[in-house]
Structure formats: structure tokens, C-alpha cells
């Protein structure tokens, strides 16, 4: 028991230390916001990108950076950053709205994949909360189950025992489900499955080789699904019918979401 307490205390200390570091970062963030307000978009972009290069991210930074790129006329980067904001915070309404507008400005529009309703419901449910969020829920459920389990163990009353046992079982099952969600979302957050084309256009090749046949052209702002990597080349697919438009592009034309 004492060990656990120690752990928790250490963790709290870490959180405090982090809070101290962010003071300067928030300064950069605010300066960038001021530059945006003053319509100095290149300066705003520089500020937000600086935060990202330090390794500090947040949906707000991505969203604001997307706006700055939008104003600067760089639709590819704008779309990329809105997508990143939405990946971190799937419920970011403004990012979703601005992404729609940015997608209207680009030339090649790929219709979004239409899925079976249950799958899309499941995906919106799982991606609707961050991995941390799901993790906290899972932990809460299991600890609550323990509390109720303690009641079950030490109670002599049959009614109390039965009720507490049922409740505990339910909590254990739901904590396992929440843990699964946390795992799925964690993988989604830490793996990149999609990317945005960030150059004005690129030829998609039949093989990971500069001399191979050109299949088709992809344009700035197009979202592609990543399939496999090989020697600086990335196999991508576009659109909903899988296997319909698949080919290889250089990794440097892609912005990973």
C-alpha cells in the first residue's frame, strides 16, 4: 500500500513540474495568436511550428496553425493541421468546419469512405475520446470495482453480498471494455494511417522507383491512406474502393496526420 502511495505522489510531482515548463510555451503560443490577429500569418505559422518542433502539441495549436496556413493560401498544410487537430480531439467542431471549407478550396476532392453504420458508430465512439480519457475511465471502473469487492468480502448480509457481487462483476467487465477502447485509441493516436499531400502535385508511381510508370496525379490537400513503406517510398491508396487507386509516392510529399 505504501508503495502505491509513493507512486501516486511521484506522478503528481511530475504533473507539477510540467506545469512549470509550460509558462514559456504559452508565451510563444500567445505571441503567435497575436501575430495571427495582426494578419501577420507567416509569423503566426512560425510561432505555432516552433511549439510543434519542441514537441508540444495540442488540438488548439494544430487548429490555429491550420487557420494560419489557410489565410496564407497553403491549403495542403492547412488541411493537414486541421486533420491533426481532429485526430487529437475528434470533437473539435471548429476544426471540422474549417477542414470542410479548406477541402472545398482544393481541386481534387476524394469522396469520404462510406461505411457500414455499426462500424462508423463504433469508430466515432472509440475515437470520440482520447486514449488518456479512456484510460482514466478504465482505471476508475476497476478501482470502484475493488471498493465494492471489499464490501462483498467483509459483509455478512446476504442481500448486501449479492448486490455488491453483481455490481463488482459489472464494473470489472466495463473496465475491461474501457481498457480495450483505450488500447484501440492509443494505437490510433500513436500510429499514422493517413497523410495529406503537401506539394502542389505529385505523380503516383506503379513501383517504389523513380523510373517506373506514372499511374495518376495527386494534388495538394488530398488525403491518402498509408499502406506500406519502402526505402523512402510510401504505398498509398486514395478514395473508398480499396485497390482502386493505389500507388507509390515519395515520403517527402506527404504530411503525416
Amino acid at each position, binding site marked *: 500500500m505504501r508503495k502505491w502511495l509513493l507512486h501516486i505522489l511521484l506522478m503528481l510531482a511530475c504533473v507539477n513540474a510540467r506545469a512549470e515548463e509550460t509558462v514559456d510555451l504559452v508565451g510563444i503560443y500567445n505571441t503567435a495568436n497575436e501575430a495571427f490577429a495582426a494578419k501577420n500569418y507567416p509569423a503566426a505559422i512560425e510561432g505555432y511550428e516552433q511549439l510543434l518542433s519542441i514537441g508540444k502539441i495540442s488540438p*488548439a495549436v494544430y487548429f490555429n496553425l491550420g487557420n494560419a496556413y489557410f489565410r496564407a493560401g497553403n491549403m495542403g498544410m492547412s488541411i493537414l493541421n486541421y486533420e491533426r487537430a481532429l485526430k487529437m480531439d475528434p470533437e473539435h467542431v471548429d476544426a471540422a468546419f474549417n477542414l470542410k471549407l479548406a477541402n472545398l478550396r482544393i481541386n481534387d476532392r476524394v469522396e469520404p469512405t462510406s461505411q457500414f453504420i455499426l462500424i462508423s458508430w463504433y469508430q466515432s465512439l472509440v475515437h470520440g475520446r482520447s486514449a488518456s480519457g479512456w484510460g482514466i475511465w478504465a482505471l476508475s471502473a476497476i478501482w470502484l470495482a475493488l471498493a465494492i469487492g471489499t464490501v462483498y468480502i467483509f459483509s455478512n448480509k446476504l442481500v448486501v453480498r449479492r448486490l455488491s457481487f453483481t455490481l463488482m462483476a459489472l464494473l470489472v467487465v466495463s473496465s475491461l471494455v474501457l481498457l480495450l477502447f483505450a488500447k484501440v485509441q492509443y494505437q490510433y493516436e500513436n500510429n499514422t494511417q493517413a497523410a495529406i499531400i503537401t506539394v502542389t502535385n505529385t505523380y503516383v508511381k506503379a513501383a517504389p522507383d523513380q523510373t517506373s510508370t506514372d499511374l495518376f496525379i495527386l494534388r495538394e490537400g488530398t488525403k491518402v491512406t498509408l499502406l506500406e513503406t519502402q526505402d523512402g517510398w510510401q504505398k498509398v491508396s486514395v478514395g473508398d474502393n480499396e485497390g482502386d487507386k493505389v500507388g507509390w509516392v515519395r515520403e517527402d510529399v506527404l504530411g503525416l496526420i
Partner: protein
Amino acid sequence: MLLFAFNAMAQAKAFRAEVPRNTIAENEALQITFVIENMEDRNFSPPDFKGFNVVSGPMKGMSNMNINGVRSSSVTYVYLLQPQASGKLTIGAASIESGGKTVKSNTITITVNKAGTKPANSGGGGNNGGGNKGGGNNNGNGQDVNDYLNENLFIRLFVDKKEVYKGEQVTATYKLYRKVQVDQYSITQAPSFNGFWTVDIEEAKTIDFTVETFNGVQYYVAVVRKVALFPQRTGELEIDPMGLECTVVVPTGGWSYQRFQHKFSSGKAKIMVKPLPEANKPADFSGLVGELDMQVTLDKTNAKTDDPITLSIKFSGKGNLKFLENPTPELPNDFELFDPKTTEKSTLQGNVVGGSRQIDYLLIPRRAGTYKLPPIATSYFDLKKGTYVSLRSPEMVLAVEGESTVTQSVTSGINKEEVELLGQDIRYIETDDPDLTTQGSFVMPLPAFAMTFGAPVLLFFGLIALKRKRDKELGNTSLMKHRKAGKVAAKRLKQAEECMKANDKRGFYNELLKATWGYLSDKLGIPPSDMNKDAAISALRSRKVDEAQLAVLAAMLDTAEMALYAPSTINESLQQTYEKATRIIDQLENSLS
């Protein structure tokens, strides 16, 4: 009919120059005849004809005659001259060697007037007709006229190859040969060259003769027509003959000459046309047979949208470039491609037809991007190598910058909601606390999370173990018995039920009582030795068990004991007793735990 009439001064030796008249116009030809009569004719050397061009000549004529026993002979050399300028011109003396001496002719002075002062008169002198008619026995050298003309005036057709590939050039040349003087040509049969595509190399408007030896004889030779032929069909093809009709002027000695109409033809030629080999024939074969070179250029490789770019494809080579098809560049549909402007140039290298063709395409990029212009490819049949040769331009890269100008037409799949969105602006940035985290951050490090998650499970089992241990330490075995009493009772009642089914009354009541007493003993913590009905009832009463239940229990125990010792007094069936017992134990189990 006889030709060579003459006016001879019998036996008199003479060497003189004669002209029909001494005054001519500048554009008129002058015929000069050197007549040698009754003299040996050796080493005739003409004067230098200063101031004149020699149009034709010399034409030698000879005649021997016997008039009234007097033999006479005459030799004529005829020249046709063209004055170079107007004015008084003197034609110098010609010379011959005769009897070891050099004899000279007379000189003649000609007055050349400005052109048009006097109509040209090609007719002979007044004695022309007479000469003709009076020549009944003037049997020149005995040649028939047609034979003579055929020998001295003919046209030949030459082809440079007898066997060619389809599309390969054959050169056909029509050459006119003459030794006689001709003053009018007309083509009576022009060849049509069926099955060939033709390019004229030479079609004489004026016929210029040069001296050439043919079959060991010198002729005046002129090319009437030279044509490059490109066979369009395979198999044996005929090249048509060319027919001519000429007016031949034949001097008849002295001042006279005679005209004849002569018709003749070149005859035809045959050539074999082979098909091009099918093996290795490229799909993009242009149809050109010969040599080809291709150059593809862009006038710029960096452009702005809507900025016209010229893509030039230049072909040059030998062969029939007319056969070439214009290649169409395959462009991404971000370009507008206009119909090409084609400039052609034909050249002749010797007799080989060739040339160049430039095709200029106008492209207008409509969208920004970096584009590749796919190679332009064509192929031709190389005659020297005898194989097909493919040409391929290098890939070119074109960078286009600027605003795209076709956005609206491309986003045609736009729906109503999107139309409304188009008019709107993006939502403003967030300015409150950004809540910065690090990439891929989780609520806590993964091992810590696993431990935090696993801990309650371990704790749960730990607590169970703890409880058991504590129970044991307290030596509270009665508690265990208490806990198990219900299960033990249920087991005994099961045995009683079996006895009931076997109709073993004694066994049944025995088991029933054991179950009930055993249950009560375990549950109430009373040792079996101290157990009796009163002790049990009072213990149950102290645990606040309902009086009604106690009464039912007491009655059930009485019945069972009575049945064991005095079975005849019992009216209740085994079934009823059994149900009572199970019910009461159930009820006690609920109120005691």
C-alpha cells in the same frame, strides 16, 4: 519522199558561209550554213561566233549528185545562233583543210535590231519550196524519214531502282535525245503515275540540252521530267510512258530546210514493290520510309497558369514526310491543348526527296503543379539499316505556378450544403489555454498504467485471503460450520428424498431428523450432545426468528420423532413432512445468515 534537195553551182569549188538574211531581231535565231562544194572536207573548224550563243549545231549534211554527167558534191555544216546583243556583228571565217591548204570561208556581217522591230520569220528563203518539190531524184543517203528521225530524236525513261519497298523513293527520269534540230516540243501523253505518290524533282519549262554520249553516240540530251515516286501499293507497278510531238527542222542544204512533225514515246518501266517487313513493326510506325530525326522542344519550362507554352515537334529527314502522322502529346487534363500549326519544307538532296515538318502545339496550363510531358514517340523504316527505328523524345518537366483557374468546373460534384459553405469564412483561432501535451502522451507511462490497473485485482484477492486468515486465527470453526450448514442440510434432505422414493419410511424419518438436527447444531453453534428441542427453540428465539416458524419447526420435529417410534399414529404423508422440512430450513437459512 526525198529530202536533200540542193542548189549547186556545178563543179565550182567553193567554201562559203550563208545566212538566210543579214538583218535579224535580237530575239530571233539565226541559222548559218557553211557550204563546202566539190572540195575535200577535213578538219572543219567553225569561227568563234563572237556575240552569239550557239543554240544548236553543227549539223552535218552531205550530198553527191550527178547532173548531166557532171558529178558534184556538197557538205553543209549548220549552226543555229542566238545573238547576245543588238548591233552589227561579224561572224568570222570558218576554215577547212583542202588539198594541203587551209581554205577560209567568207565572213558575214549581221545587223541585229532591237527585239520586236521585225517579226520573227522562221521560214526559209524563197527557194525553200522549190527545193522540196524539185527533189524527185535527190536520194540523199537513202534513209527512210521515220527511221532517220527515230534514230536522231527519241525519249527514254530511266528508273534508278527496279525493286523497292512500299513507300521507298524511286526516281524516274525522262530524257530527250536528239541530233536533229527541233523547234517545237509538245507533250502528247503526260504520265499519271497510278499507284504512286509523286514529287517532281525537275519539270523543264525550258529544255536545256547538254552533250552526252548514249550507246557510243553523242547526242544533245535534255531532261524533260524527273520525278520522285513513292509506291503506295505493293506488287508490280508500271511507270507510264511519256509521249512527245516535235517539229523537226531538217536543213536541206543552202538556205532551205524542211519541217517534219514527229511523234514518239518513251515506253514504260516496271518496278517491283515489296511490302515492308511485318516482323518487329512498331505500333507507332509513322509510315515513313527513309531517314528521320525528331526534336521536341518547349519554349519554356517554367510558366504561370494561363500562360501559353509552345511545344514544338520538328521532324526532318529523307523520304516522304507527307506520310508522317502528327503525334499528339498526351498531356494531363490540366492543360488545354490547341490544334497544332504545321509548317512543312521540302528539300532535295541530289535526287533524294526529303524535308522537314514542324508541328507547334499551343498548351495553356490551367492548374499549378509540376507536370511531366510524356515522351513523344514515333518510328520509321530505315532503308540503310533495313529495320524499323524508333524515336523517343526525352521526358520534359514543366513547372506551373499561380492560381488555378478551373476550380469551379472541377468541383462539379458539389452539393447544396457545400454551396452554402463556399460563401463562408473559416472560424477564428482559439485563444484560451492551449493545454499543451507531448506527442503520443498517455495519462501515465504504460508500465505504471498496467500496475495501476492490475493492483485492484491483486488487492481483491489479497483481501479475500486476509479475511480467511483472520477467521482461522479466531478459531471460529463454528463460523465455517454456520456457513456450510445450509449445504449439509440440503445434502441430507436429498438422501431423505431418496428413501421416500424407495418407500423406506424409517430411513426417511431418520435422514430427515439428522438433516434438521445437524443443520440446527451447525447454524446455532450448539454441540450435538447438548442439542434438544428446547435448547434449539430458545436459541432460535434469541436470534429473533419468527414464532410462527418456530411452531412449524417444533411440529415438524414432533411428527418425525413420533413416526420413528410409533409409526401407526402418523396421518401425514412422507411427502407433506418432507415439504415442511425443506420449507422450514429454507426460511431459517434466510433469517439466520
